[in-house]
């Protein structure tokens, strides 16, 4: 029993550390519970889809897909076009997805093909590939748009007549998915009365006692994410999903049992890229502003850090890891600057701490994974040698 408990904690050391950090940082930050819950709900809706897109390549044994930024860029190109054409609301989002999908598929096939040439170092390759495609993306968006690619809306372009501006306001689709099904949780006021939610236009209302303020729930986004989780669960059981898991276990065995390894790996990356494209569109409809040259860069790093904080490893990740990760990571995201300010008197320190933790956690997760794999390799070699080699 105690052994099991120790195993549980040891197996989930990273989330455990984060829970402890949060336990100290939350009181220090001085934020109210309703504020935190509201922020967390928003961020779950905003980020989960992006993080979920990482699961399938992990299943196929390709590690963390740093190439997901390719999909994010495809999504952004879709968003730039709908802005230019003035399509707003849900139709705008759908159109952005439709434009983004073929771009994401092409980029995904390219990424998959490149990764097949770099087996064994997929992560570093996909990471550099992200930078490379970022260069191509900048070439397209900063020079070709408005020059070769027709852009009619002058507010999208830089004053020189071509190239997209640095920040694009996505006011047309801002929050359309989040507010599609308005839902509100309302708490009690200080005197113990339930807050009135009449006139808030909410479609669904929940009332909870012992709770201050109101919380808006991005219900439609959460439903979409739930649907997507079901898709992943179903996908694992399909022939393709099983093939991917087999490849994740051993490429050579899969190959000899007739699974087209390279093709399946490309499919895994394509799915991931397309989903990252949708994820980025969902993310940006919540943010409401597109930082043309930065938004995608952060997407990859933050998603990967969140997934790892949720207890995933390079070779194993579940849906639960995604949600635990997004909650813990963003909890720290919210409270760290305030906690830093209240503790040392400088918000900048909390901010740097957060950046440090995001990178540090990726580093630690990668180290633990490689370490474990090397130990297993050593152990299996020793077992082949028999007992006599028991150094």
């Amino acid at each position, binding site marked *: 029993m105690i052994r099991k408990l120790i195993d549980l904690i040891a197996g989930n050391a990273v989330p455990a550390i984060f829970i402890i950090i949060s336990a100290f940082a939350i009181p220090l930050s001085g934020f109210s519970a309703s504020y935190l819950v509201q922020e967390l709900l928003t961020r779950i809706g905003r980020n989960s889809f992006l993080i979920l897109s990482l699961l399938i390549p992990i299943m196929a044994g390709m590690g963390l897909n740093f190439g997901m930024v390719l999909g994010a860029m495809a999504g952004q190109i879709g968003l730039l076009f709908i802005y230019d054409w003035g399509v707003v609301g849900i139709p705008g989002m759908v159109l952005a997805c439709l434009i983004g999908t073929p771009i994401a598929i092409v980029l995904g096939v390219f990424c998959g093909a490149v990764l097949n040439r770099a087996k064994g170092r997929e992560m570093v390759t996909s990471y550099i590939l992200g930078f490379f495609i970022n260069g191509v993306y900048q*070439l397209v968006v900063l020079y070709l748009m408005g020059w070769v690619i027709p852009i009619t809306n002058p507010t999208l372009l830089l004053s*020189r007549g071509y190239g997209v501006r640095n920040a694009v306001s996505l006011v047309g689709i801002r929050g359309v998915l989040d507010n599609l099904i308005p839902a509100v949780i309302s708490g009690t006021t200080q005197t113990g009365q339930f807050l009135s939610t009449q006139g808030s236009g909410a479609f669904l209302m929940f009332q909870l006692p012992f709770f201050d303020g109101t919380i808006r729930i991005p219900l439609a986004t959460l439903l979409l994410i739930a649907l997507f989780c079901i898709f992943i669960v179903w996908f694992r059981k399909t022939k393709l999903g099983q093939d991917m898991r087999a490849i994740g276990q051993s490429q050579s065995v899969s190959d000899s049992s007739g699974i087209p390894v390279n093709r399946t790996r490309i499919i895994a990356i394509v799915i991931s890229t397309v989903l990252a494209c949708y994820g980025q569109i969902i993310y940006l409809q919540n943010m409401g502003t597109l930082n043309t040259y930065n938004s995608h860069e952060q997407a990859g790093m933050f998603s990967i850090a969140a997934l790892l904080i949720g207890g995933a490893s390079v070779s194993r990740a579940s849906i639960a890891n995604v949600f635990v990760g997004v909650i813990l990571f963003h909890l720290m995201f919210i409270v760290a600057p305030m906690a830093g300010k209240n503790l040392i008197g400088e918000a900048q320190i909390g901010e740097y701490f957060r950046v440090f933790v995001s*990178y540090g956690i990726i580093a630690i997760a990668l*180290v633990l994974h490689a370490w474990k794999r090397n130990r297993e390799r050593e152990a299996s070699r020793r077992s082949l040698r028999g007992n006599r080699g028991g150094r």
Partner: protein
Amino acid sequence: MINRFIQNAGWPRIIIALFLLGLFIAAPFVGVRVDTSLSNTLVRFGMNGVMVLAMIPMVQAGCGLNFGLPLGIIAGLLGATLSIEWNVEILARLIELGAQYKISWLNEAFITTWREPIGFASAIIIAIPIAVILGWLYGKLLNRVKGDEMMIATYVGFSSVSFMCIAWLLLPYKNPTMVWGYAGRGLRTTISVEGYWLHVLSDALSVNINGHLYIPTGMLIFFAVMAIIVWIFMRTKTGTAITAVGSNPEFARASGVNVDKMRTISVIMSTVLGAIGIIVYEQSFGFIQLYMGPFYMALPAVASILLGGASVNKATILNVIVGTFLFQGILTMTPSVINSYLQTDMSEVIRLIVSNGMILYALTRKVRAGR
């Protein structure tokens, strides 16, 4: 003959070399002086050369490309900032030592004339032990993660840079030229080295012809000295053992080489060279860039050595020289030439595509001998 040359050099390298040549030819037609461009290229070559050189030991030892270069850079930054912080004390202490041990030439006049080179040397002397310690730890870490070095190196670099962001704010630096004026603590994001060791190497023995062609002789000599040191080191017994470990670890172990020790030595050496490299860079650039400054500094260095023809597990001094010259040449020429032609600054985009394209090319190349 031509075919063999192409095969040896590789298509990407030839295309980029031709592109650079084209830029130099096109330069006069768009009103860019070739001699100015050439001296800019030389200055940048000298600035970055040592950091590119830092790639060699780790590549040769089979640790892959040192994406963790920022760790060495941090050691260099510590050395640089401490040399400024303690500048007065160091100079005073040297005069004291001269008096104490009756060294007649080590007097006040000597120190005053040579205060800038002494400051520069003190930066390097402070940086080296820090780099050795960090490199040793980093090497121990990389020994445990064989096969995944590059990805982990990247994130070791990133996390150390972001950790140092906190440290730069909290470390008790006092020198008013370095700390924020209003708070009185916390280092500034960029610190000028003017008055300490600005251009000590660049301007030493520098040649200036007709006001346009400037050759930073001192910096180039320094690079040459470092290159020769690395060249000699790679030919010593230890260096040969390092190369053996990189080419075939099993074979190296069978012939009695301590694989982990050799890898650690190579990582320490890489880190030390990175530390020296950034100090050389700063004395020419004129500023110490702290906080997120060193974040992406590994990528240009990695791209340079690959552009010079190195692969993930083999690199020579020639690769460093050719690669740094080509890479820095393109960085210098594209803004000036292409901008005057197209009236826009495409250099950043070209840099991104060329440098990362080069790294991708190297990573996806089928390596003949398995590691």
